[in-house]
């Protein structure tokens, strides 16, 4: 019996020839990521060493990444003090993968890690953030842990007592129709699996749609697997992974790629036909409350949010800017755009997307988690409804338990900003002249490919300039 991706990765990390589902292993950690909650990790870490007579030094400062993103710039003296405490710890321990509040290298942890080349296929990555599932997009086994667990990792360099999880195989085939995006695939899947349907399991993505998808889209899929309860999402790495690592992340030494064994055992197989998929909406107040966009038609919204670790990447901004070009955000709607990293912010600036957003009436905010988790920026009023490209719509999520959050793709969010109510982006297709009329459908996909290509041609310069 063969092994799934996660079995193979855990076997390697535990130094074993083979592991079975349910085995308990203590995998070595390749990368340990924290954000502002590093303040709590530091507290727990020093508590571990209390009375041991040993110095409280992390096991390997080069394997720890700390990225400020949840509350940037600080919204309160309390946060600013947490930031300061972390900065001092970083300096003392010699942690180099540190991204402070800066316009040249800041951003959301789940974008900073991949774009900086910190994520590599086959790695074991842990993060004190539930959306650490994202990094499976590059073929790593990457999962969220709590602060005390992280303190233990900082001390030992391994995660204690990990049960090898079972895997759900998701096979996506078919070409996505125009304005139907990776976000719609994952929302549809969460609706099918339910919020706890993948609890303790890994979701492994297969199929031609995933093979043809950019790493950016794969990050969307893996990011939201946690909303079905999954420990992690994972895409077996391939040519696209190598392209991303080399061209966009500046990685020179790419590790040997491997996929699951052909006879790997899966607990469940889910098939999705992307060509039949419609834009999806997650209704309040659970992420699995998913319906096709038509069911939300006419729901008036007061806030649109495009951004976050889920959908704040360049292709999201490109598709939204394409829809908003020459249009206006409806009066009475506040549209907020949060690029996922400052590099993406600069790229979007160069491509003119940010100017398009501002001319339309949107507010472009700094890179960070922004209003997604209701910490600061863009809180909702009592009775407000928001449509967001973020990942959670729990009661109180956007800062107010008396408001409602709906989730969608960037295309749906942009289309809805124009009308002021939840709108099927496909309804704009006829009225909007495409750049190449007569092109066969599936150009939602085509458009993305076009953007990627363009980036490839002139991108190298841009990318290099963006880095260090």
């Amino acid at each position, binding site marked *: 019996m063969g092994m799934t991706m996660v079995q193979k990765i855990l076997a390697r990390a535990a130094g074993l020839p083979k592991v079975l589902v349910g085995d308990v292993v203590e995998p070595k950690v390749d990368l340990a990521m924290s954000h502002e909650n590093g303040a*709590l990790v530091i507290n727990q870490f020093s508590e571990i060493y209390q009375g041991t007579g040993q110095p409280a030094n992390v096991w390997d400062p080069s394997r720890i990444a700390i990225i400020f993103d949840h509350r940037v710039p600080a919204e309160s003296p309390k946060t600013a003090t947490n930031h300061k405490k972390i900065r001092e710890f970083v300096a003392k321990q010699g942690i180099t993968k540190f991204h402070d509040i800066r316009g040249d290298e800041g951003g959301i942890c789940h974008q900073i890690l991949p774009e900086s080349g910190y994520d590599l296929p086959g790695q074991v990555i842990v993060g004190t953030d539930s959306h650490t599932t994202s990094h499976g997009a590059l073929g790593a086994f990457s999962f969220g842990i709590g602060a*005390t*667990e992280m303190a*233990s990792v900082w001390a*030992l360099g391994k995660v*204690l007592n990990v049960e090898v999880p079972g895997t759900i195989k998701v096979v996506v085939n078919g070409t996505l129709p125009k304005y139907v995006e990776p976000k719609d695939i994952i929302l549809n899947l969460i609706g099918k699996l339910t919020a706890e349907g993948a609890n303790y399991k890994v979701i492994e993505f297969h199929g031609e749609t995933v093979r043809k998808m950019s790493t950016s889209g794969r990050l969307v899929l893996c990011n939201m697997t946690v909303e079905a*309860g999954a420990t992690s999402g994972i895409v077996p790495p391939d040519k696209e992974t190598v392209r991303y690592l080399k061209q966009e992340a500046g990685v020179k030494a790419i590790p040997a790629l491997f996929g699951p064994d052909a006879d790997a055992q899966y607990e469940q197989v889910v098939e999705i036909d992307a060509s039949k998929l419609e834009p999806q909406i997650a209704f309040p107040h659970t992420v699995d409350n998913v319906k096709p966009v038509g069911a939300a038609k006419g729901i008036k919204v007061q806030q649109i949010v495009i951004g976050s670790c889920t959908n704040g990447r360049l292709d999201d901004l490109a598709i939204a800017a394409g829809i908003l070009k020459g249009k206006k955000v409806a009066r009475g709607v506040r549209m907020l755009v949060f690029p996922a990293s400052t590099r993406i912010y600069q790229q979007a600036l160069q491509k003119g997307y940010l100017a398009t957003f501002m001319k339309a009436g949107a507010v472009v905010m700094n890179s960070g988690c922004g209003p997604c*988790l209701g910490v*600061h920026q863009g809180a909702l009023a009592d009775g407000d409804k928001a449509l967001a490209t973020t990942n959670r719509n729990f009661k109180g999520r956007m800062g107010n338990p008396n408001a409602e959050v709906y989730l969608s793709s960037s295309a749906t969010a942009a289309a809805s900003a124009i009308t002021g109510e939840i709108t099927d982006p496909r309804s704009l297709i006829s009225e909007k002249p495409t750049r190449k009329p007569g092109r066969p459908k599936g150009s939602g996909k085509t458009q993305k490919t076009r953007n990627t290509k363009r980036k490839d041609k002139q991108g190298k310069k841009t990318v290099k300039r963006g880095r260090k």
Partner: protein
Amino acid sequence: MAKVALKLGDDISTDIIYPGRYMATVLPTETPQYAFVDDAEFNKKLKAKQVEPGSFIVAGKNFGCGSSREQAASCLTGWGLKVIAKNFARIFLQNSINVGLYMVICPAIEADEGDEIEIIASTPLGNPKVKNVTKGKEFDTVPLPKARQAIIDAGGLIPYTRKLILSGRK
């Protein structure tokens, strides 16, 4: 024996237990004040010390889904609350074991607010049972992951890791 202080449904997220806007507060000594803060009535009761330590929260499936914020577990231990749920979301379960929150997985639990609950710790099969004294019913429990038992026995992950460091098993 202790009372059910709060009865909840399925998919209770960490945003309900401990809203994101209080995440700058991290210390276990400070987090309890924000436990269920958006449930004004229950939060007020906690702060007024009208909820006895040792009282139970009874919830449905997928308790603690969402964020990895450990405050959602530490804010409950601070009040001495115990949680019985049909099942728990993965990260919340791990966090709770790590910080020593008393939790019971009880898939068939039936209880209402005010019911008296007793945990029968040792049964012939070794698994604790939940007895709803008020309703006169007993319910089976699902053991916590075996892999975590050593951490529970050590009183949490901090003492457990400390022990490993001292024993040189690092």
